[in-house]
């Protein structure tokens, strides 16, 4: 008896279809609220929620001569590839969204991109850096720049600023973002300084907390600086442990450092180091500054790069919807119009920089290198454009 209740309840929930309201625009969010990286999902959700309230409080989004209220649907993909696929299908078919924002990490963005491309629904991944996500997929876009651009930025900057001849790398083996960036960095650095100039190339696992063996090896190799293309939570541990093992040299990081939480977790240890990223929070001006301050006031912490990129990605979608000049109500036609509008955006002025899309759907935008100053702020140091 009990069993049949559960069954009935399950079926009931599964079949409860959302009601369709004519004057709303639905956008789906395929984000990891649980699993390995819940913080990424939370940032995305918060940023999107802020944007939705913004638009709706002004009456809604004006498309052509009609104004629509926004409805954002947040679905958890549990940081799993298979769940990202079903999530994408559910958003496309059950919820009938016009476009999808997410997934964030490439492990989910690559398969979900396939689903969106097959089902002709525009998708934009805020954070995925794997080329496969958008490659040969006209319906898939992204807001973050790719690893092949960011790697050389780090090499050039370190060569110039630290007068580096040798480098060491520590990266996350199971994280394709980290691994990809580490390999591109290594190839580019060795091209510049000769084979063997990357004196140590060490990996660790995603949930590792102890890096002492890798760091001991790196420090023994005496590099001029250590490149750490890792997520900020691991950066905090790596930098601290390196200092405990006697390392006093500089660190260079990547955009995954760009979280306000970095300073909270890392404290004094991270001060004085550099990383390349999408935008500099300290000294930001205009819309970027406004976004950071409002986000901080609303949720109590400075937004990280995921939040900023989600904000931009979602605004790109809204911009594309407005560019269509009017929705027909026919889902297939509208999705096609939105895709075409997205692909033909000339220049989008986002809070993470100006960007437009190339033919693969990847953004062309500038990177900045920031320094962490003694107040723990990310200070603009230099800007590199492709």
């Amino acid at each position: 008896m009990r069993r049949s209740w559960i069954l009935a309840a399950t079926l009931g929930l599964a079949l409860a279809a959302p009601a369709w309201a004519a004057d709303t625009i639905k956008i789906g969010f395929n984000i990891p609220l649980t699993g390995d990286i819940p913080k990424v999902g939370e940032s995305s959700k918060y940023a999107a929620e802020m944007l939705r309230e913004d638009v709706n409080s002004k009456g809604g989004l004006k498309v052509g001569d009609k104004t629509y209220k926004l409805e954002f649907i947040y679905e958890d993909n549990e940081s799993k590839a298979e769940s990202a696929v079903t999530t994408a299908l559910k958003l496309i078919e059950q919820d009938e969204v016009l476009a999808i924002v997410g997934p964030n990490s490439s492990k989910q963005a690559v398969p979900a991109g396939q689903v969106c491309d097959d089902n002709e629904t525009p998708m934009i991944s805020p954070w995925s850096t794997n080329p496969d996500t958008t490659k040969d997929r006209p319906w898939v876009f992204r807001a973050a720049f790719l690893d092949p651009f960011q790697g050389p930025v780090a090499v050039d900057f370190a060569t110039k600023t630290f007068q580096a001849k040798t480098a060491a790398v520590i990266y996350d083996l199971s994280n394709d973002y980290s691994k990809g960036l580490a390999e591109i960095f290594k190839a580019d650095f060795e091209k510049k300084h000769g084979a063997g100039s990357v004196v140590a190339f060490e990996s660790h696992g995603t949930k590792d907390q102890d890096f002492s063996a890798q760091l001991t090896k790196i420090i023994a190799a005496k590099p001029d600086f250590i490149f750490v293309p890792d997520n900020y939570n691991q950066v905090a541990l790596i930098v601290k442990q390196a200092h405990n093992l006697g390392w006093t040299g500089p660190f260079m990081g990547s955009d995954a450092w760009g979280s306000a939480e970095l300073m909270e977790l890392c404290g004094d240890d991270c001060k004085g180091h550099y990383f390349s990223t999408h935008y500099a929070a300290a000294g930001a001006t205009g819309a970027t500054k406004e976004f950071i301050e409002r986000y901080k006031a609303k949720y109590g912490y400075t937004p990280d790069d995921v939040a900023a990129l989600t904000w931009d990605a979602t605004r790109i979608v809204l911009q594309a919807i407005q560019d269509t000049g009017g929705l027909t109500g026919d889902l297939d036609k509208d999705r096609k119009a939105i895709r075409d509008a997205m692909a033909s955006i000339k220049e989008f002025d986002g809070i993470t920089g100006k960007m437009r899309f190339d033919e693969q759907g990847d953004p062309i935008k500038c990177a900045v290198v920031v320094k962490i100053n003694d107040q723990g702020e990310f200070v603009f140091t230099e800007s590199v454009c492709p």
Partner: protein
Amino acid sequence: MLSTIVQNLLNALQWGSFYALIALGYSLVYGVLLLINFAHGDVFMVGAYIGFFVATFLLTQAAGLPGWVVLAVTIPATMALTAVVGVTLERVAYRPLRRKGANRLYVVITALMAGLILEHGNLALLGASRKKFPELINEVVYTVGGVSFTNLKIAVILAAFAVFVLLHFIVTRTKIGMAMRAISYDKFAVPLMGIPIDTVIVFTFILGSSMAGLAGVLFAMSYPVLEPYMGALIGWKAFIAAVVGGIGDIRGAFVGGFLLGAVEILVVAFFPSTFRDLIAFTVLLVILSFKPTGLFGVAKTTKI
């Protein structure tokens, strides 16, 4: 070269200490109940968070207290509170199943589920932001002959050894320790001898969970980034360590913990680090195929 080896041995001792402290909890419970308490890694996580809240509470409410006083209060308080969590798990989830005579593997699955609830309960309650454990003692880096270590590192290693001596004493020299060994020897005869079996089991959980709490605080001080999933991987690996040592034996858990720590660190030190898991687990497989019941395990014909 020598300094590199000594440095790596120190690293291995510190990392192994955490495996050992968590493995002790697995082994204690297993020794008495033959239960793989898969929630133990998450109890460790809860311990770290409890330590965080106690320490932060003390630092804000009684500002001006020196760090070592806060630490001296935090450790026993955390151990006590974590023990409460462990005992609650046993009372709410495991004991009813045991009473019903369920296959012990169902209790194992229940433990897995309880671990998931602890993880996601934490995520839902506290949000996804990671927590930074406050610095209670001033970490000092000493460098002697190319070998760097901190006062904290030494303290962790000493604490692990002290805990081992204490637990070994309790299990082999005290009356309740004797009762624990008796239950694992013959679960059915023990109640007939007038030994309160449930009391002994609760005591076992108190011991195991408070050790997890201690490990949590020490861990949070050494690796000050707290997140809901921090106990999952280290929990699985500590379980592996306990089994390689010979599960159910205090010495086994202790040696197994240090062994796993040493294997992981030394593989990275002398091989390409991408092969760490591959080589480390192959070594463990080889050990188990030569000593099928672990290093300290006693061969006995058991059936499930």
